[in-house]
């Protein structure tokens, strides 16, 4: 009896690491999306436009899976290499605040949409993948929502979100480039800081 129990225990210990293996990018996207939607569907505050609660939800469930440093580097483009490490950190922090706010806002417009997960063909050795999903809403055309993920060690991290073909990150490229041309990297940092302050002041 005792040996059977210890055998079972041993099996469990050996099998556990297999379960702990990092989920594929498509599994990750589905898991996080389902988690977030479950919360939003039950939370009347968020559905009524309570942005602060939506931001908290995003910070807890979604943020850990994003690589903001890379996202900011993409948005800033060629001038990223001209920034000091301190400026880079500052830019990434402010850009993260802005993106979280924008993404959380779209959650407050949730009205009974359903998400369809498109099949992702994975070979098993990629490091850069696009996971496609589709948001379906009654009476309206479905909206494409894609996530660009890259492998960082064992984990997959999102570095771009593409809504209806519009990359959230590259949509800022021209604006950022213009600001850096006019006022340098510090000018861009200031622009982001001011924008975030403005949003903070206006929010619920």
């Amino acid at each position, binding site marked *: 009896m005792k040996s059977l129990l210890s055998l079972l225990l041993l099996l469990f210990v050996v099998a556990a690491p297999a379960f702990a293996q990092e989920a594929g990018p498509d599994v990750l996207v589905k898991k996080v999306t389902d988690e977030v939607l479950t919360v939003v569907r039950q939370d009347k505050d968020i559905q009524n436009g309570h942005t602060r609660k939506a931001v908290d939800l995003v910070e807890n469930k979604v943020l850990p899976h994003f*690589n903001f*440093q*890379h996202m900011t*580097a*993409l948005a*800033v*483009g*060629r001038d*990223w*290499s001209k920034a000091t490490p301190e400026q880079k950190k500052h830019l990434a922090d402010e850009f993260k605040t*802005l993106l979280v*706010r*924008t993404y959380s*806002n*779209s959650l*407050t*417009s949730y009205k*009974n949409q359903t998400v369809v997960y498109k099949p992702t063909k994975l070979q098993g050795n990629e490091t850069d993948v696009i996971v*496609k999903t589709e948001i379906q809403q*009654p*009476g*309206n*055309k*479905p909206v*494409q929502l894609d996530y660009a993920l890259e492998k960082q060690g064992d984990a997959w991290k999102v570095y771009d979100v*593409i809504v*209806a*073909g*519009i*990359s*959230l990150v*590259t*949509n*800022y*490229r*021209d*604006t950022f480039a*213009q600001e850096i041309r006019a006022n340098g990297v510090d000018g861009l940092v200031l*622009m982001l800081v001011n*924008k975030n302050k403005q*949003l903070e002041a206006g929010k619920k």
Partner: protein
Amino acid sequence: MKGPFVRVQIGKRVFPLVFAAAVAGALSGCATTANNPKDPYEGFNRAMFAVNEGIDVVVKPVAKGYDEAAPLPVKAAVGNFFGNIWDVWTAVNNLAQGKGSQGLSDVGRVLVNTTIGIGGAFDVASEMGLEKHSEDFGQTLGVWGVADGPYFYWPIIGPRTTRDTLGWGVDTYVDPVWRVNDIPLRNTLAGVRFIDMRASLLASDKVVEEAAFDKYNYIRDAYLQHRRSEIYDGNPPREAIDADSSK
């Protein structure tokens, strides 16, 4: 129905605004310093954008009222009805682009939705697995190899590249709603469709307001990306990233 009434009001206010803005735009266009290669007529476009923002002051409350007052099944039926009419043109464009199976699927959609879906009010076809596509003549021209051309922003119509402005012209010419003989009915249909379309954009208004540093720029860049994606049916070739990619 508020449709035709709103359009008459808009008509009276639009013309003088458009004229003044066109003049202002033409003058300021000469003074534009930031020359974006995608947007050589930025001065004119920004003036038109301002006109449209002015028009939206009248339109948005109507759209919001519709959005809040109309029960979801009604809004769904309206969206589906006009979507069904559009599916016919989508089918034609898919075939013209050489996408035979998609075109035939669209024909199937129209048949199913018009009959079982009771005049298009119910999108039964989607539930049967016939996916909804959206094609217009601008996309067809794009697939045929016609380049974007300079970007324009038109009042009421909104953003369009040069090619897509021409495409819009063709779309409007074949549009069955504009061919309805009974003028009041035609205007009502067009008005309802317009308000329904504006209402569907209300959710993204908030996002644009908060995410954009410059609303005009944001909308232009989003539009150009979106069009490119549409022409490639959601799978545009990924652009080379300039960034130094240092993490």
